[in-house]
């Protein structure tokens, strides 16, 4: 992977589902401006949608918290990081299972993200703050 100064786009928004289509649309518009292909942009939008939905639905359910998304656009890839304040222990356990590729009863969003991305990493700190990092390589560059 090339090491270069990326274009960095960051958005922090209230943990509300209604914000997600707006955020993913903005990021996809920016990716289009940065000359990523339609297909790449659309699939990246899908990844952002899944991860943001997870952050809002399974994140801190009883608190008004924010979701933070960071998108680093390199010439050969994008790296997306989504951070939320974390949810119940049960949801955290399910997330760990999903990351570890163990079959879980519900959702499947992360499985789809894994299919579309080269790398999916998850870190959960001691206060349940959850961070998902996704690397997706551009398909049209060698």
């Amino acid at each position, binding site marked *: 992977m090339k090491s270069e100064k990326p274009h960095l786009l960051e958005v922090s928004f209230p*943990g509300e589902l209604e*914000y997600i289509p707006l955020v993913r649309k903005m990021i996809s518009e920016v990716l289009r401006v940065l000359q990523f292909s339609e297909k790449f942009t659309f699939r990246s939008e899908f990844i952002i949608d899944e991860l943001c939905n997870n952050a809002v639905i399974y994140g801190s359910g009883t608190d008004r918290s924010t979701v933070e998304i960071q998108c680093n656009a390199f010439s050969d890839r994008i790296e997306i990081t989504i951070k939320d304040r974390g949810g119940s222990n049960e949801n955290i356990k399910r997330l760990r299972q999903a990351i570890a590729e163990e079959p879980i009863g519900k959702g499947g969003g992360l499985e789809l993200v894994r299919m579309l991305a080269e790398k999916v990493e998850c870190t959960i700190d001691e206060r349940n703050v959850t961070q998902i990092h996704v690397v997706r390589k551009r398909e049209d560059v060698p």
Partner: protein
Amino acid sequence: MNDTPNIKVEDIPSMPEVCLIRLSGELDINSVAAMDRCFTLHADNSKKHAIADLGNVTLIASAALGKLLGIKRRFVEKGGDLVLAAMSMELKMKFMIMGANKIFKVYNDLRSAMNAYAWDVKHETERVRISFPPELAIVPAVRNFVSRVMVNKGYSDRDSFRIETIVDEICNNAVQYGSPDKKDNITLRLKVDWGKIELDAENVSDADKKANLRKHMDNLKNNIHVQGDATRGRGLALVKMLASELTAKITDTGTMVHVTKLKEE
């Protein structure tokens, strides 16, 4: 608070006047008495508003729906409401067939219900922050985003478009008068209120262009109009006309433009 087999009433620490009712399983005729007992127990407490979490409910019989209506009425009489959250798609469909979606406010998830309460009832401020590279081509995506947020927050199309115009101008200025270095991102902060929006656009200064921006700001302050043949300075004049308040802080390190725009419609 109180528990019965498929009803749990909880406090929400950040919202003392709201109670969270977690219901689960099948809410049939046998649940009605338990629901009634549970709410009678809480009838005289200070909670004005309730959110029913139906995420684990598999069935709502008409008797239980009737009971929920009764409970809603009690909250409405206290000046509050009972709203429903996290229903499964199947349950939501049944709700729509019964016409109950016209009576209850229904939210997709618990957090959205809480946020809606904070916005609709408490009129709390919502904050959004966007940090983007200093490139003119990225500004349309940012202004479109802000405009969509405003429409979602109940601002009229006209207000939203005017806010979009303001965002376009202040972000374009931030790019044009700021450092072109890719790492010197521009930060746009939105403080969205029920009746107004506050915008802060902040950039890293470009020493060569700072004097020009300062001149434009001084002209605005002194009500010096942009001349017909002038090629620069119209954007800020336009923002001043559209906004309720416009201020700029130009320092050696960066510039911050603050705009307040009241909801007009």
